[in-house]
């Protein structure tokens, strides 16, 4: 009986605790400050106990509609490593004409001091504003009196004149969120499309409802006659329907960190809002975007991309001169490509819309991706080539999953010659025709035809880039003397050009081989480096003392010497995100070894051929000995560029096998005097 009594109190206590969670601002409880570790994720350094984000519209006569965002966060700090969560940065857009307004910032830190709950206020002079760029200002603050165990709480409000800018609302952080409330109220005048991040396994339920609402505002009327000034106040009330969307979730897990993930937030849960159209009383529908077709049309027409492409005049003479006597379209394109790259340099800003305008960029010699590539397209068109803009999104901007204008942030040129499409990006000095820089190789792009019609095209190369090595080795004692020829084509060549573009890196084969003690390199030569798009040939001769292990009476020789793959790129046991390769690739090795005088083969590593998955890749390792020559040919091919987490283990094993085979040694031993060796043979 007593036992039962006890359990009920405990139960009661737990229920009571749950109910006692009070998320009103300022109602931080002792229990929350007392909590020592996160109940689910024990090693969390901090957790969001509560986050609420309310988005709604305000109306006043002077400013019209304003988009209001109210944020309230309560964060628990468990350990010193979680202190970063006590510092907050709030981004504000400061546009050309109008800017966001941050108000009502309040913050408190809660600690238990000698058993008493004490609060410390964030003071106004502890809040700072930093201008990050032309477009962004950041409001920064760090909470006072934070120690392990503190609970911090703050709230703020942003008023924005950019009524379509709801954007991405976060639904997940790097730390757990115990309680999340998102509440978006949109008046009937605005229609948004909304979607959650498909790359996140977390998809939350969006509750929808409607409510009649009204805005009331007053107007002053001043009537002045000869002697009297009369003021009248008039109240106006507008009634409308509010569409309410809300997400209420508990126990949102922390976003997991993993190596080889370039942009972790690609995988975080969020909900994105894009303005489709507005329909105000007594006016027509204003369309923003609905289908991909609409998006590209609006970019092409409304934003003036099409206009920009029609500009010419300022470069005619130079192009005419440049192309005089040329008729081959590929040659013309190459000339123009080189001309644009030499004339206008990229200023590191991305965008599909020209920042300076193509004309100014041409005159001043620098511009953003929009300036440069629209200029390129415009010149190609001027030369009667079939060139069109291709809109795309860089990896940091995510993948264009739904038809939105913000889904794109970059433009390249698509050039059609004899039915084949070649992509060109003049912001990358090392890219040839058909080669995009990594920032532009993100899934699919949208090719826009004249007038704005558009279609999807693949941005990943459809060819396999090749890196092939030929090495001939002979021995003087235990010193290996050899020649190394390597061919780079496709994107391997482009990468090589990038890595060797700075003067210090001219001979970085020495740097690359720094881990090989004592190696001497001579006759280093690179061919075709300046010849964009062409295959690069890199050759050198080397001398490597102690290239073999001479142990006892045997010689152990790893045929790939310093070119063997020794490290598995995939070290984690498991993986929850996909693995991406930059492009389809093949690495080939062909090695000829002349045996040292007076030695014979005791054993050779076994040959082996292994496939990755169905046919996503292949590893070959084939050894032959004939006479005093050993020949190794090896190949590592990766055909697919995206591997699912379920395929991670195959990849890991694939590399494990490569490293094993590349590490195996040929065993040699001295031939005994000729006659004796014959004797042994015949003694069988």
């Amino acid at each position, binding site marked *: 009986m007593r036992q039962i009594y006890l359990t009920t109190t405990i139960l009661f206590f737990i229920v009571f605790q749950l109910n006692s969670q009070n998320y009103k601002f300022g109602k931080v409880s002792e229990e929350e400050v007392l909590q020592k570790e996160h109940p689910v994720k024990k*090693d969390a350094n901090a957790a969001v106990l509560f986050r609420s984000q309310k988005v709604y519209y305000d109306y006043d006569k002077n400013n019209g509609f304003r988009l209001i965002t109210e944020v309230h966060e309560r964060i628990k700090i468990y350990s*010193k490593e979680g202190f970063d969560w006590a*510092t907050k940065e709030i981004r504000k857009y400061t546009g050309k004409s109008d800017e966001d307004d941050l108000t009502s910032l309040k913050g408190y830190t809660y600690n238990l001091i000698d058993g008493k709950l004490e609060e*410390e206020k964030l003071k106004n002079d*502890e809040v*700072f504003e*930093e*201008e990050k760029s032309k477009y962004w200002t950041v409001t*920064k603050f*760090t909470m*006072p*009196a*934070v*120690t*392990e165990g503190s609970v911090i709480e703050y709230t703020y409000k942003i008023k924005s004149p950019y009524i379509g800018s709801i954007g991405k609302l976060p639904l997940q952080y790097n730390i757990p969120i115990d309680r999340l409330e998102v509440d978006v109220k949109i008046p009937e005048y605005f229609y948004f499309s909304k979607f959650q991040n498909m790359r996140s396994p977390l998809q939350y339920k969006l509750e929808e409802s409607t409510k009649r609402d009204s805005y009331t505002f007053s107007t002053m009327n001043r009537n002045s006659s000869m002697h009297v000034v009369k003021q009248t106040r008039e109240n106006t009330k507008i009634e409308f329907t509010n569409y309410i969307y809300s997400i209420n979730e508990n126990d949102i897990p922390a976003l997991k*960190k993993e*190596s080889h993930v370039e942009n972790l937030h690609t995988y975080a849960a969020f909900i994105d809002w894009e303005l489709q159209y507005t329909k105000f009383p007594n006016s027509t529908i204003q369309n923003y975007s609905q289908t991909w077709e609409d998006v590209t049309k609006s970019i092409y027409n409304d934003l003036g991309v099409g206009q920009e492409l029609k500009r010419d005049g300022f470069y005619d003479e130079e192009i005419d001169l440049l192309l005089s006597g040329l008729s081959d379209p590929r040659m013309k394109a190459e000339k123009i490509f080189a001309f644009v790259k*030499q*004339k*206008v*340099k*990229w*200023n590191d800003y991305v965008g599909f819309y020209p920042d300076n305008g193509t004309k100014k960029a041409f005159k*001043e*010699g*620098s511009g953003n991706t929009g300036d440069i590539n629209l200029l390129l397209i415009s010149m190609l068109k001027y030369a009667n080539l079939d060139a069109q803009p291709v809109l795309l999104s860089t990896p940091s901007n995510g993948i264009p999953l739904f038809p939105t204008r913000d889904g794109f942030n970059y433009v390249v040129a698509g050039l059609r010659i004899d039915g084949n499409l070649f992509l060109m990006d003049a912001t990358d000095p090392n890219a040839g025709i058909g080669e995009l820089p990594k920032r532009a190789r993100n899934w699919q792009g949208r090719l826009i035809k004249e007038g704005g019609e558009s279609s999807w095209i693949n941005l990943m190369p459809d060819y396999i880039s090749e890196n092939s090595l030929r090495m001939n080795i002979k021995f003087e004692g235990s010193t290996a003397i050899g020649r190394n020829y390597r061919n780079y084509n496709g994107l391997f060549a482009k990468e090589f050009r990038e890595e060797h573009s*700075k*003067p*210090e890196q001219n001979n970085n084969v020495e740097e690359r081989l*720094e*881990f090989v*003690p*004592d190696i*001497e*390199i001579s006759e280093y030569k690179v061919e075709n480096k300046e010849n964009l798009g062409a295959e690069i040939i890199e050759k050198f001769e080397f001398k490597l003392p102690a290239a073999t*292990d001479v*142990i*006892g*009476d*045997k010689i*152990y020789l*790893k045929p790939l010497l310093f070119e063997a793959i*020794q*490290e*598995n790129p995939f*070290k*984690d*046991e498991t993986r929850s995100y996909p693995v991406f390769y930059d492009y389809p690739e093949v690495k080939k090795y062909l090695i000829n070894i002349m045996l040292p005088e007076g030695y014979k083969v*005791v*054993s050779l*590593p076994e040959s082996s051929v292994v496939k990755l998955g169905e046919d996503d890749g292949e590893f070959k390792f084939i050894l032959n000995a004939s006479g005093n020559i050993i020949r190794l040919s090896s190949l590592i091919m990766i055909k697919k560029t995206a591997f699912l987490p379920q395929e991670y283990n195959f990849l*890991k094993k694939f590399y*494990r096998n490569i*490293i*094993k085979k590349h*590490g*195996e*040694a*040929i*065993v040699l031993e001295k031939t005994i005097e000729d006659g004796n060796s014959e004797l042994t043979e015949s003694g069988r």
Partner: protein
Amino acid sequence: MRNFIVVIFLGLFSTLHCQENYKVSDINLKMLLNANAVVREHHTEIEIENIDDVEIFTYRVVTVLNESGETFINAYENFDKGRVILDQEAVILNAEGDEIRKFKKRDFNSQSNFQNFVLFSDNKVSYLEYTPRKYPYTVIYSSRIRTESSAFLPDWWPVEGYKVSVEKSFYKIINEERIPIRFTERKLDGLAISKEYSKYELDYTAEDIPAKSYEELSPSFRNSSPRLMVALEEFSLEGILGKATNWEDFGKWQYDNLVAGQGDLSGVIVSKVSGLTQNAKTKEEKARIIYKYVQDNTRYIAVMLGIGGWKPYNAQEVDRLGYGDCKGLTNFTKALLASQGIESDYTVIYGGPKRDIDPEFTKMQGNHVILSIPMDNKDDIWLECTSQDAPFNYLGDFTDDRYAVKIKPTGGEIVRTKKYTAEDNLQKTSAEIKINENGGFDATLNRYSYGVPYGDIYLLELQTEDVKMNYYRENWPQFQNVMFDSIILKNDKNDIEFSEKLRFQANRFCSNAGDRLLIPLNFIENFDLTVEKDKNRENPIQILRGKSYQNQFRFILPEGYTVEALPGSKELQTEFGTLKLKISVENEEDTEVILVERNLQIEEGEWAPEKFKKFKDFINQIHHLSNRKAVIAPINKA
């Protein structure tokens, strides 16, 4: 009226230089060698208008030869309330010396200027943003700023870095107010210098300095380059006036104006600390408790506004906020110690790579503050107050072995911080490795780290299991598919010892050669120094800190295997260090064990460039000896 004169002066200056032509073809060939940029001329003119009013005029012409040379354009100025940009202008010339673009003051970009560990500072920077069409090109930059802080006259560094040559560099102080100046030369000997100076003014010129390449293990540029250090006898810092010609007076001035009066504490905190320390017997014990209290209750956040860049927040304020920068946290700790009757000294230092506060030349220096507690008949205790995790009296490689200045009520005092010798910087490993027939293994490993290596690793203890496992996997790429049975890390802050006890397995370590297995005898290679393969060394070789490794590896052979071949023991003894390698086989019942003892010590020091070949041989020999393998084979085959 003054403005009028300045305009005329400037006008003269610009017409003077407009006549110059900066064709790239005019550059002497020897100045192009090794260079990414050529400084055609650089003028710094400092005009002392008054003790709290200094104008600095810069005129700088740089030819940029390639992309890497852009770091030497230096067309920017920092500014804040006490430092105002009066003029700023840039002209871009093409290789032939023709003007292609001009930037007026309003064309410069400005933005906040502070490193990301600082939460906020009012310092901003106004800089030139220019994307060149092609190389080479030349930038003519001129600026005029006015500052009220004469405590920081810019020094003259005629050599500007590696890979840059300097045709002409001018440095001049104009001082009509006749405030006495002090200056000192450092390493100017090797340069072609002409100079004129008086008690009030000076005029230095250097010419034809060819570019040098950087080589690994070169002495740091800051410590080894020529410079002229200059200060005023009377000066101003953000409006606070001072007068000093030696460290004692300068320290006294700093103490009186920046540190004194900032040590207030509330009664609450004093009684709390008194309570915490009441049972502690010695000064050191008390200090330990107070240091821990500071670490547990504060964090590092830097906010630098105006004089706040130099003066610590009041201790009371740090107590309330629970955060501060190095000055604030050091001063807070000092105040807490003082409340318990323990004296300590606010000490200014350069944190980061070894760099000295110049002991001979007094002027505002340093970028960091730490605390020292003088002890009777013992070395001072050093406290790094910005770290929540560092052990008591541990400096590590951030502030070790360098000159610093204590700011005491009685005056400044130059001191040298603790040095970590090769013996102090010890990493000791013992491992037992059970090899299996497939070439994998099961191992237990114990490793102890002390001195600077301790500082490199002790934070690992605070990481999550995943991060720990990942740390080992990344650091030991030679093992395949490492699985951990246990990772036990212990950070003994009292003895400043970090211990790692690991049990783990991996499935490939030895390489196959037919039936045989090759065992690499250096189980975990933790010596990672490599040297360039260059032929003609120009710079001295500098090893900043010695280090020693003591390793013992026991490789237990799989059953049925025997040692077929074994490399011999070996000793190397050089002035750069020593390696003792002992390799032997033991029989334990039915199994054979290979025992490897490997003791490596690298010495601290600086050696002439001519010794480079010997040094390189030593390093390569170590790697070579470390790469050796034993061969084992099944008994019936051997």
